[in-house]
């Protein structure tokens, strides 16, 4: 179990992370979100024991996290971070042995993952000869080579096509099933939504949103209504109390309302329209909540 308790980190007057708390249980995938410079990398480094928090504590399987734990942690950073002049095998031997994995285990695991990702043929090729997508796979394998108990993935799908994304997703799910904890960070919030049960959103080092995704959505209250009907009077909808925004799209009209109460009023009006085909009340997507919260935070 990983338990982050009231953690804060600052560099002089710059507060990189403030009062951050969350818990991850084995077999859980956790989303750590934020815009660029929000404090995600600092948080990852504190979790790995690379830097010590100024305040608070990080407990990893019931002890204070330290550098001694790095061998059980896998880390994949957002950008390409590979030595490109060496072969795939030599690179894995280097990175694997730095995690105290035996040469035999590295070889076995490397063969398994290369096979699974369909790139066995590149084992003896130099990294620089590989395409960006394949380099991404090698970077992913490097994070898994020590069979980590905690896997930190920063933008693992960036630059991947849908097929390869699916292969990554399935590998991450397998790790989850084996009981590993996964911290997942991505700007593609649809992935976060499909993967994570709990999230924390950081903005300029501050937590602006946290908790289980479902609860966050419920607490957000705002809802979207998708309407397909003829002769809708937009002015009438806009005049209904609680309607925040009306967006006329080619095949539907999207109405954003502030609460469930307003849904009823919109529905009462739509009933009077001709040929009503669709009246769907939709939960707001995570991206909408994210943008809304970040903008509000910027204003304050």
């Amino acid at each position, binding site marked *: 179990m990983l338990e982050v308790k009231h953690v804060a980190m600052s560099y*002089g007057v710059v507060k990189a992370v403030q009062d951050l708390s969350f818990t991850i249980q084995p077999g859980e995938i956790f989303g750590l979100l934020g815009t660029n410079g929000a404090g995600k990398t600092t948080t990852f480094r504190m979790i790995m024991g690379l830097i010590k928090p100024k305040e608070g504590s990080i407990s990893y399987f019931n002890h204070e996290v330290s550098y001694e734990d790095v061998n059980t942690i896998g880390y994949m950073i957002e950008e390409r971070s590979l030595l490109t002049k060496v072969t795939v095998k030599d690179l894995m031997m280097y990175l694997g042995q730095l995690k105290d994995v035996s040469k035999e285990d590295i070889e076995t695991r490397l063969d398994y993952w290369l096979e699974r990702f369909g790139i066995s043929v590149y084992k003896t090729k130099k990294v620089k000869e590989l395409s960006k997508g394949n380099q991404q796979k090698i970077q992913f394998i490097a994070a898994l080579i020590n069979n980590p108990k905690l896997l930190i993935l920063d933008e693992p799908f960036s630059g991947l096509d849908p097929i390869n994304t699916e292969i990554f997703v399935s590998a991450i799910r397998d790790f989850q099933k084996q009981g590993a904890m996964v911290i997942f960070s991505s700007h593609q919030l649809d992935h976060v939504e499909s993967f994570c049960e709990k999230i924390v959103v950081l903005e300029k080092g501050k937590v602006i949103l946290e908790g289980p995704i479902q609860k966050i959505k419920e607490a957000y209250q705002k809802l979207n209504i998708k309407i397909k009907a003829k002769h809708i009077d937009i002015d009438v909808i806009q005049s209904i109390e609680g309607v925040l925004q009306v967006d006329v799209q080619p095949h539907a009209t999207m109405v954003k309302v502030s609460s469930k109460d307003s849904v009823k009023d919109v529905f009462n009006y739509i009933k009077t329209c001709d040929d009503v085909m669709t009246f769907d009340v939709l939960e707001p997507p995570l991206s909408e909540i994210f943008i809304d919260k970040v903008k509000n935070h910027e204003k304050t």
Partner: protein
Amino acid sequence: MKKLKFLIFYGLKKRLLKKSFLISNIIIGLLTILIINLPTIIGLFENDDDAFVRIAYVVDEASLGYISQLDETLNQGLEEDIFIFFETQESMKDSFFEQNDYDILLMIQFDNGRLNLDLYRFETTYDTVITQTIQFLDVFSQNQAYVPPVIDSFLPDDYEDPFINEIISSISSLFTLPLFLIMTFGIQFVGVDIIEEKSSKAIETIISSVKANIHFLSKIIASLIFITIQSLLLIIYGSIGTLIGNQTSSVTGVSTASLTEVFVEYFPNWQGILIVTALFIFVGALLYLVIAALTAAISTTQEDYQTFQGPIMILLVIGFYISIFASAAGGDTLLRIASFIPFFAPMTAPVAFAAGILTPLEVILALFILIITTIGVIFLVTPIYKVAILSYEQTKLFKRLKTYFIKSKHE
């Protein structure tokens, strides 16, 4: 400890098994052998006909007829005489050093059956050949048991041996060029290794497996081992060069000493000089490696590193030039001062010590200053390295350094 060992071994393997290491060592090896045997090579092409004519006046009070015999023996086998002898009077000795018409005054006297030889001259080139010839003639002229002559030689009061400067200059090159090469290799080794990992961002994955200070230490130790290996290889090349020189002399008959032999002949305390040199290389290399490692750590790209390492190379080049040219150009004071400046000392102090410009006590002081500075730099650099290695600032050098320094104080 296991990771430190692994990183050191990995770094060394990566460097020593490179083609560039092999090629550079072939070139350095050949150059070293060539430099060591330079006197022999020059000797092979030297023409005795180019020798200057020396006019010698002889006062032969012993009346042994040595003038004609000296003329015959010293000019024997030469197309043109290089010694021209005239007989003269003893009174000439009073004005010998005030004239420029002749080069040597030889006074041969007998005192109680023993030959007394007074040799007046402006330089020492022909001392050995003249005195040995006289002794040779003396042996044959004596009937009883041989008594060696008493030889007194005189030089002008303001005499300076020109050969000493040449020797010091040669020794400076002999010492300083390999030192410079080794230091440059070391700086390149540590810098390129770190910047390769940093610019590719592989450092993120590496530092998530091994502590930054272990990473730093491994790079420094691997470079020091590399420098030691390279130094040993240079010694081997030097030995091979000396061996080849000896073999060449016996085959060609040109009996010119190799630079190694000249070194040993002119520097009776050569063991001390070698120890001093080794100590200065070791500590000096450590100082430069630590700074090179920091430079690579604060760099974000390969271009950054090329720019930032410029000042380090300039310091090294200044030290190199001071040690090579200062002694030859009579800049003893400059060499002495530079020996107490830590960034120049690794190259200037051994040369200054060999040339007798620094006393043993002074060389110990210079080494002490270098060690203290190196320790200070290590303590200052290590925390900055820890911060800089995972930071990617794009600001100017000093602003970047300042930022990392402040961050290191807060971490």
